[in-house]
């Protein structure tokens, strides 16, 4: 039993509580938040793989039916969790760092929400218990609403309320689906449910079991912002502070993969599950990218692009082979980094110009050369240009879909990449290369050093993963082999 595994959740949770309680002491809070944020990526790297049973209740065998039951909540920690939690911790650290240097006076509730979101997502990723995942998913939804409401951008309250109203349709449906699973199998532990399904204790073809898939699937659509929730998800990103949006999109990606992996373990024997995932992923790619092409608010544009990129992850999971799922998860990791980089980079532009409409911007290359070059590389990585990390994962996805006998999906994926590239080139041109409009007043504002630092760190990871993808894909592939 490894004591560090629950600490991954407890440390940000306790930090959040302490910060909200003692936010009056400005300086001390800043130092404390910085130290805790620095710890976050270190803990998962330092701890060993294994299982953790809360309360020490190891699995028991039911003597009557000879079925194994997990009475307590179980956390399982493997390479996949390690890499994602470490990346999430790093991103949280960078975002908290940017936030701490941007504002003189810290806002206790805002820091609380940032740490709480990280804790909730970590718990969702670690947990092996579907109801526990639901609890932390709700915490995450509230934290997201709080991060949006705190930003005090125009119309952020309206967007937050819309998100909550849609969420209170989406998440009870998921709860209802969990209820169906509980009724059918008598357990909320994913390992138990999967064992019950695969051993034939539950009839996998019965319509009731299928209905639970439908309800949980709908909840997953809400969690991950796939259509029909793509408009609200991109709206949420555009109404948060840019560094907050960088963290919000990573929450979305991680909650998406953690729920879909649980669904995959339970429902992988049903062909309709894969059909549904692929269908909604393709829809997300088409709608996300085509709407991103027509946006003039660049925050909204990246929001739609982020949703469109989620489609690639779903595609990998939906194809269902070991190679494809590895590609999808690798793409998820890349997307967390690249989209965060884009959000932080464009956030630097917002910071310097107080303007979000691309039509009013122009000629920024001369003023912010560092930011523009890093943004260019990030955009190329998102579009999938070698040797950056986006290229490796998209190449894997294209190969995987070819191997599965779906050349149409490969062509579609390549087309979406090209359209992503077009979106990016268009925005880059209007913001950086086009002549500066006369009305645009550039106050001699510098881009904060911390933003440049954060972008540099993320960029190094992008290039590193692009050149040596094996350091991640080998481990992920092992993990996927374990759940197949």
């Amino acid at each position, binding site marked *: 039993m490894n004591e560090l595994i629950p600490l991954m959740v407890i440390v940000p949770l306790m930090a959040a509580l302490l910060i909200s309680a003692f936010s009056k002491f400005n300086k001390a809070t800043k130092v404390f938040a910085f130290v805790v944020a620095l710890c976050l990526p270190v803990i998962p790297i330092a701890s060993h793989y294994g299982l953790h049973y809360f309360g020490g209740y190891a699995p028991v065998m039911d003597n009557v039916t000879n079925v194994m039951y997990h009475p307590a909540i179980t956390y399982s920690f493997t390479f996949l969790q390690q890499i994602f939690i470490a990346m999430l911790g790093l991103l949280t650290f960078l975002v908290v760092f940017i936030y701490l240097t941007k504002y003189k006076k810290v806002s206790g509730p805002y820091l609380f929400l940032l740490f709480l979101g990280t804790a909730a997502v970590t718990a969702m990723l670690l947990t092996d218990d579907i109801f526990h995942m639901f609890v932390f998913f*709700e915490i995450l939804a509230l934290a997201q609403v709080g991060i949006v409401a705190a930003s005090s951008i125009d119309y952020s309250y309206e967007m937050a309320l819309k998100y*909550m109203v849609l969420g*209170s*349709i989406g998440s009870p449906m998921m709860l209802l689906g969990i209820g169906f699973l*509980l009724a059918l199998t008598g357990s909320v532990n994913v390992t138990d449910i999967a064992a019950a399904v695969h051993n034939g204790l539950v009839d996998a073809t019965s319509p009731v079991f299928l209905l639970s898939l439908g309800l949980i699937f709908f909840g997953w659509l809400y969690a991950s912002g796939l259509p029909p929730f793509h408009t609200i998800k991109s709206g949420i990103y555009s109404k948060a502070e840019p560094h907050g949006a960088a963290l919000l999109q990573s929450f979305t990606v991680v909650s998406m993969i953690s729920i879909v992996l649980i669904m995959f373990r339970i429902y992988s024997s049903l062909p309709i599950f894969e059909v549904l995932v692929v269908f909604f992923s393709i829809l997300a790619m088409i709608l996300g990218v085509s709407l991103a092409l027509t946006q003039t608010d660049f925050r*909204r544009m990246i929001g739609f692009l982020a949703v469109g990129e989620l489609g690639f992850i779903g595609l990998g999971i939906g194809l269902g082979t070991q190679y494809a799922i590895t590609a999808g998860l690798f793409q998820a990791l890349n997307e967390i980094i690249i989209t965060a980089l884009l959000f932080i980079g464009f956030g630097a532009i917002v910071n310097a110009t107080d303007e979000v409409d691309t039509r009013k911007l122009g000629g920024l290359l001369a003023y912010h050369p560092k930011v523009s070059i890093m943004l260019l590389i990030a955009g190329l990585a998102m579009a999938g240009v070698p040797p950056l990390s986006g290229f490796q994962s998209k190449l894997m996805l294209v190969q995987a879909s070819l191997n599965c006998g779906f050349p149409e999906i490969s062509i579609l994926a390549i087309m979406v990449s090209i359209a992503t590239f077009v979106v990016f080139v268009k925005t880059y041109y209007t913001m950086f290369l086009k002549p500066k409009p006369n009305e645009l007043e550039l106050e001699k504002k510098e881009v904060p050093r911390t933003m440049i630092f954060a972008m540099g760190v993320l960029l190094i990871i992008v290039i590193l993963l692009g050149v040596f993808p094996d350091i991640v894909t080998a481990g992920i592939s092992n993990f996927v082999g374990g759940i197949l």
Partner: protein
Amino acid sequence: MAQTQLAILFTSAALVVIGLYSAIFIDNIIKKIIGISFIEEGANLFIVAIGYKPGGVVPILMPGMDTSWFATNAAYPLPFGLVLTSIVIGASTLAVMLALVMVLYRRYGTLSTSVMLADTSKQEEYDE
């Protein structure tokens, strides 16, 4: 006694459906939120109903009860435990939604969804 359980289960489904209808068709945001909270309550009631055991006893060990008899005849405690958590979750989201409505009502002076939560992307795109 199985009819009791079926009746409770049907009630929960009815709550979910009523909630969905009110989410689409009611314009007043407060009423809409009340309707939406029906969905949450329907899901909770559903899970409570799963824990029902025909002819069972309350899952509390009374003094003098035989433990093995109790284990086979008590109602299922797990769904009740889960529902207590999810009730609190529903209440919290309800509180946050109503707080947002309060602030927005002060700003707009109306509770109509079609005014308060209309499309905002056009207005913010090019404001001078």
